[in-house]
């Protein structure tokens, strides 16, 4: 299988290859042509590594925009009353912060970046199953993202004149508000609709790759746990995304034609929208965090220089989370007016998601036992993930219990909780991956001391920022508020101070990685003494099609019984 796939890829690593080659030829004398050829060699490359890096760079840009918007929110809320943006602008800012962070950063997140880069390497495959489809996901992503960002700036007012109308209503776009709001929601929704396809294609590609392209000797239970996590999250992408696509499409149709599915004045049901929205968006939460769990499983084992504790428990719990995650969506809606029976059923099911998550955490900690622990930067990030995600998960228990959730629903408690899970979980997992696979991607290494410094700023800032949110939420501060009562001032100020510290850490981290990439010292071949195929069998950075000869696997991905040679 693998070798026949290899012949297939050999002449197709790049679409428009002929054009690119002729450009390169012409580029011998012309710098512009040379540059164009270089750009083409990236944006039309079907090489999974280049696609992964493309995603990483574009997502970093969107992340920077999202962080800036978040910071703007925090500055506005430093004092009660209007500081420097009006309620209307504020509403658009938090909406775009959510849309950009969720749809353009955390959902594509680890699968699109390091999933693309590492999955074939870890499986011992020359590329993913469908390289062209893989490249197309990046293009769809860019088109969808373009529409979403465009909706920030362009729209029409009631007279049909072009003007700046940014969408509001929050990233959840609840109806009927999103149906009648004059802001530019259709464009943002169309963007999200297209992004959904990007996500689904990536999922299908990964599932096929995992089933069909594992190296000789690698059964499902010899895969690194990162592959397992991608497998679980890919199923979520494939099965849940269509529901949100349908929902978004229905909102768009309803806005233009008024068919009355969600609009109560036409006999529709606004709560139906909430159900359809969360049927996707709750599994999507696991889609954001399961790959991060995979990264952390790999990193903790490698930096403990021992095999992972409870491999099967971790692998199967990923699948369990993905599976149970489908049946818990309505815990977002305990106050929506659905029946009490439904509330009780969904509360009961919700608590079952907590169990596999707890199992994972215990197994990670047990992996440290009798290891030979190296507290390098990736390991520090991995342990940070365990800590922050524990807070995220544990604070979520309160949202599962009906009576307590009724109190904290739609308050800052929820805002704090989901930032702990998605940012402290999903994004910290991505930062961990950035530091872990950095030598593999670039062949170089960043400055470790600066890496620790960035982490310290981030850690202190993060907990101040979102810890205060948890407290003020419990005290009754509702979310999506442009203004607030004086009793919440102190918590908002703490939160803003935390944000500044955290963003300082992010900037240091970003500069450190960038400097390392441009002119860092050369990394060792197997820089962290890993045992999975991307470290043992491929160069850093890996060659096109990854391996000189098809790797064969003996032993598991965390086989620390012998020395690595």
């Amino acid at each position, binding site marked *: 299988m693998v070798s026949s796939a290899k012949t297939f890829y050999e002449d197709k690593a790049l679409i428009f290859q002929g054009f690119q080659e002729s450009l390169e030829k012409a580029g011998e004398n012309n710098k512009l042509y040379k540059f164009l050829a270089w750009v083409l060699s990236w944006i039309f490359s079907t090489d999974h590594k280049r696609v992964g890096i493309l995603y990483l760079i574009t997502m970093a840009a969107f992340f920077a925009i999202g962080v800036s918007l978040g910071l703007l929110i925090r500055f506005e809320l430093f004092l009660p009353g209007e500081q420097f943006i009006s309620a209307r602008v504020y509403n658009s800012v938090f909406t775009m912060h959510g849309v950009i962070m969720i749809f353009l950063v955390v959902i594509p997140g680890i699968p699109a970046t390091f999933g693309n880069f590492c999955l074939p390497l870890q499986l011992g495959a020359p590329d993913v199953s469908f390289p062209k489809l893989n490249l197309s996901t990046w293009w769809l992503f860019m088109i969808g993202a373009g529409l979403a960002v465009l909706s920030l700036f362009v729209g029409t007012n009631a007279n049909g004149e072009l003007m700046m109308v940014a969408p509001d209503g929050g990233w959840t776009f609840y109806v009927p508000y999103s149906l009648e709001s004059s802001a530019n929601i259709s464009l943002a929704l169309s963007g999200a609709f297209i992004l959904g396809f990007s996500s689904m294609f990536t999922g299908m590609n990964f599932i096929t790759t995992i089933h069909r392209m594992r190296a000789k000797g690698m059964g499902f239970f010899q895969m690194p746990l990162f592959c397992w996590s991608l497998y679980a999250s890919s199923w979520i992408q494939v099965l849940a995304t269509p529901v949100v696509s349908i929902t978004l499409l229905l909102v768009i149709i309803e806005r233009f034609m008024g068919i009355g599915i969600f609009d109560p004045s036409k006999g529709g049901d*606004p709560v139906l929208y909430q159900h359809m929205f969360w049927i996707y968006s709750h599994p999507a939460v696991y889609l954001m965090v399961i790959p991060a769990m995979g990264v952390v499983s790999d990193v903790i084992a490698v930096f403990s220089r021992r095999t992972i504790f409870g491999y099967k428990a971790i692998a199967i719990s990923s699948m369990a989370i993905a599976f149970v995650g489908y049946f818990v969506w309505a815990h977002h809606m305990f106050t929506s007016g659905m029946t009490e029976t439904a509330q009780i059923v969904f509360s009961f099911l919700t608590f079952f998601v907590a169990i596999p998550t707890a199992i994972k955490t215990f197994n990670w900690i047990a992996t440290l036992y*009798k290891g030979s622990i190296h507290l390098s930067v990736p390991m520090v990030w991995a342990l940070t993930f365990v800590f922050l995600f524990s807070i995220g998960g544990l604070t979520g228990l309160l949202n599962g*219990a009906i*009576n307590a959730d009724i109190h904290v629903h739609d308050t800052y408690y929820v805002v704090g909780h989901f930032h702990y899970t998605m940012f402290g979980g999903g994004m910290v997992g991505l930062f961990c991956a950035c530091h872990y696979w950095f030598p593999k991607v670039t062949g170089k290494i960043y400055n470790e001391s600066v890496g620790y410094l960035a982490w310290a700023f981030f850690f202190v800032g993060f907990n101040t920022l979102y810890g205060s949110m948890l407290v003020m939420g419990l005290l009754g501060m509702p979310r999506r508020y442009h*203004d607030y009562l004086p009793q919440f001032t102190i918590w908002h100020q703490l939160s803003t101070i935390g944000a500044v510290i955290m963003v300082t850490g992010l900037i240091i981290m970003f500069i450190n990685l960038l400097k390392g990439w441009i002119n860092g010292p050369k990394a060792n071949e197997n820089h962290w003494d890993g045992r999975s195929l991307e470290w043992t069998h491929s160069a850093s950075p890996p060659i096109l099609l990854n391996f000189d000869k098809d790797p064969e696997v003996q032993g598991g991905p965390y086989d620390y019984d012998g020395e690595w040679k």
Partner: protein
Amino acid sequence: MDVKAIGVSLFQGVTDVGNSVDFTFLFIFIVCVFFLIANTAVMVYFCWKFHHKKNPVGTNIEGNTTIEVIWTVIPTILVMMMFYYGLAFNQMADLPKDALTIKVKAYKWAWAFEYPNKKKLEKEAVGSKEWKIRMPVLKIPVGRAIEFEMESSDVVHSLYIPAFRVKRDVLPLIKTALWFKANKIGRYDLFCTEYCGDAHSRMYTQVEVVSQEEFEKWYNTKDEGQELTGDALVKKGSEVASTCMACHSTDGSRKVGPSFKGLFGRTSELASGSSHKVDEAYVRKSILEPNSDVVKGYPPIMTKVPLDKQELDALIAYLKTL
């Protein structure tokens, strides 16, 4: 009058359900803090104890079924307890028979309350130092079950009284309900917690819990149906109009809707294509059926504000003065 409302504190016991919520919270909180501290402590201890300088070679332990079973079963038991404690909320089937049913109407961006005997609530200035709004402050008796029958006249809102630990979404054209019994006299915050547009954060009022005697006395006093005329009517109108200020200005500046300045007598171009001289009939119709004849260039999003006849007359009288 400007009374600061009582905030949220643990086991403050304003409502019975509040104490159940706080118990669930405390139970979950203790479990969480225990696991967080225990996990983190073990993690840090292992990192120190098995640091590669002390322990150069790791031991490969593949797993242990007994331990896996233990740390699956214990969390399962704990979360099932959490689920059980979480069930203590006010179900509508348990609504006491003597409950006082108050109809709640939510609209962009204010609350309106209707008692069974149509007793009117006084509007009071509530809010913070930075902003004040005039809202009806809900008056309820202590120790008696109160049922809210809620409906929105536009988008989804959500009624939230943190000190009571109650919250329920308010949907357009679909009735939702909740009930509670307040046990302590005082004033409490009432928020909207479902995003509903520009002035979402100012869709705020307070609930005043008073003694039963005081409530009965107030409740059974007939509203003085005195006729207002002249300046008194205009003054009342300006109070009514405070609700409108989120979308309309009085100084000619453009907000979500057209300015009130010079409203009467001007000629408006309508979205339907015709133009119309603004007279009392048009203004009345535009308030009662907001989106029937929208001025060109403005979105048809005005909400139906519940006003009684006197309030409407007062509002018209006030608008004429601008």
